[in-house]
């Protein structure tokens, strides 16, 4: 696994980013560097600040403090479209797909290929269908019929359309918000494969998850969030799966929970069903 040398410029970087909602400090002083060809996992329990961080990365929220850099240049996103135009594409949990519209129409929404620059020129549907199908095939998905409604697709398939769209439109940084959380084992495996595929194309992938079993196999770097703070960024070689779990859940908390459960089990331990 290529752990990028420090001489390579990060595809995206946050420096000292904080976000406050009134008196609530959702994020405090976050520093993150994401390199091309790297899967950077953002891990954290519920309430750790993952969602807020994604919204900062994708241009939905503006940080209260701190700086964002894309390809070494400082940027200020006014909208998600701003971020996309700079090559930062986000696949949100709700995917931003319109279920009554076809795969192709969703794929090209906002960037429709037209036959000319005239105001009412035709949306080139044949070309769009071919491109959409090809873009999906490129990341290893075989679409049945690009004109079918997105609402007819499974969760994993929708995820793949969203990823293919981001990759096709020149994303340099691909942000995936809990892409596997609503999926079954098989479909989650499919999405993880797309993540590796995207990394092999040289994209910087930011993979947000609270599921270490999905994140650990594909991740190169792990940033652990807890209560709005960065609890450390580790290369895969520096940290084991169990250590990640321990830090994510706040270490001692988990031991306390385990002790409590052990106590409970001891109380009911005499029941026959509990005996091995």
């Amino acid at each position, binding site marked *: 696994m290529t752990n990028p040398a420090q001489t390579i410029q990060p595809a995206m970087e946050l420096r000292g980013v904080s976000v406050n909602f009134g008196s609530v400090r959702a994020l405090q002083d976050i520093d993150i560097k994401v390199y091309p060809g790297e899967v950077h996992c953002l891990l954290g329990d519920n309430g750790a600040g993952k969602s807020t961080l994604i919204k900062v990365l994708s241009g939905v929220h503006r940080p209260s403090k701190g700086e964002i850099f894309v390809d070494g240049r400082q940027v200020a996103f006014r*909208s*998600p*479209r701003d971020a*996309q135009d700079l090559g930062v594409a986000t696949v*949100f949990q*709700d*995917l*931003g*797909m*319109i*279920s*009554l*519209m076809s795969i192709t*129409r969703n794929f*090209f*929404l*906002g*960037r*429709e*290929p*037209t036959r000319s620059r005239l105001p*009412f*020129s*035709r*949306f080139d*549907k044949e*070309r769009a269908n*071919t*491109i959409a*199908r*090809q*873009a999906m*095939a*490129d*990341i*290893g*998905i*075989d679409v*049945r*019929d690009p004109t*079918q*409604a997105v*609402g*007819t697709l499974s969760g994993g398939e929708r995820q793949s359309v969203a990823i293919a769209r981001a990759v*096709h*439109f*020149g994303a340099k940084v691909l942000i995936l918000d809990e892409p596997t959380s609503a999926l079954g084992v098989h479909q989650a495996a499919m999405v993880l*494969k797309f993540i590796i*595929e995207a990394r*092999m194309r040289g994209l910087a992938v930011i993979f947000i998850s609270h599921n270490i079993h999905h994140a650990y196999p594909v991740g190169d770097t792990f940033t652990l969030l807890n209560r709005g703070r960065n609890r450390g960024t580790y290369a895969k070689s520096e940290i084991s799966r169990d250590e990640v779990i321990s830090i994510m859940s706040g270490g001692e908390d988990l031991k306390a929970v385990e002790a409590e459960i052990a106590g409970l089990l001891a109380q009911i331990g005499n029941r026959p069903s509990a005996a091995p």
Partner: protein
Amino acid sequence: MAAVEDKAIPSEVPVKGRFGMTSKRAAGTDERLASTGRLTQWLRRPEAGAAGGLIATIIIFALLPGASNLYSLQGSMTFLTLAAELGIIATAAALLIIAGEFDLSVGSMVGFAGVVIGLTVKYWGLPLWGGIACAFAVAILTGYVNGLIVVKTRLPSFIVTLASLYILRGLSIGITRAVTGRTQIPYILDGAPDPATAGLFNGHLFTGFFHWMGTQGWIATRTDGIPFVVGIPMSIVWWLGLTALAGYVLTQTKYGNWIFATGGDLNAARNVGVPVDRVKIALFIYTACAATLLATIQVMEAGSADTTRGLLKEFEAIIAAVIGGVLLTGGYGTVYGVLFGALIFGLVQMGIFYTGIDTDWFKVFLGIVILMAVLVNNYIRLKALGRGGGK
């Protein structure tokens, strides 16, 4: 987007993925795609329900007494004209509903635009085209204000345009009575002889052809040899033209994509860069302009403006759209279905008249048709999503 242009498009679609996942199918066939018959595919089209309803309505009235009058050339032109006048505003209403908004001020806009033409021509002495231009300017402003309020406040357009409904109707009556002392403006065309402009809205197409058919004895003529139907009324031409244009924009251009997306999922559309606010405002303006077109046609035909014109037209427009397969929740529909919806409307209205059924029953019939249309629409939407059950 440059990225789109740069990609080469291979002629063969299936491609080996980098993980060795080879597509099993040849281009065009897929064993996972359950074969759907042509009938099923056709039934999945949103206008299928309206087309079926139209055929049923035509058959029902063909079996009733008076059908020969209803389906005569003259009778047909009458119900086609009714359908056209409704269709002009219903098409606009449909686009707006697909984009997720309503305009209840359409009917009042019809009345108000007529009043603007009447007052500017008769009391300001503007030429006819000037009066019509004023009416369209007022329409653009009204649509813009409606749209701007809806977009900026995010209030339901139902409430915002309900306010416009009362304001415009009140202004029509108030201004007209203040200026003329009455609620009607008669003889608008008398002082403004401008046959070219008037003909654009109340003239007829193919008059020569219809006259020729009269001389051949193919169509009924008066004693002086002029046929009862002198040609295709301009209202029908406008209706078909605008339907074709709206249909083209909706299905063939990127703006159509934006309209569907705006009504389908506002946030998703905004996130990918669709200018959802501009889409909505543009459609509010189009709706107001469609109402003004209808008002112009009516003023040219009647030669007068009436402050009560267009009463309840907003609901008729929404009904035609719903019968036509447009989902009230937005994001789905077609303007061709609305064409059928408007036809059903005109046919039933005239059919009840010709068959001698008490016209009081029209509204009962209308209510039943609306209910059936909504049920069919709901079913078709679920079919489109490939589901049997509810979502």
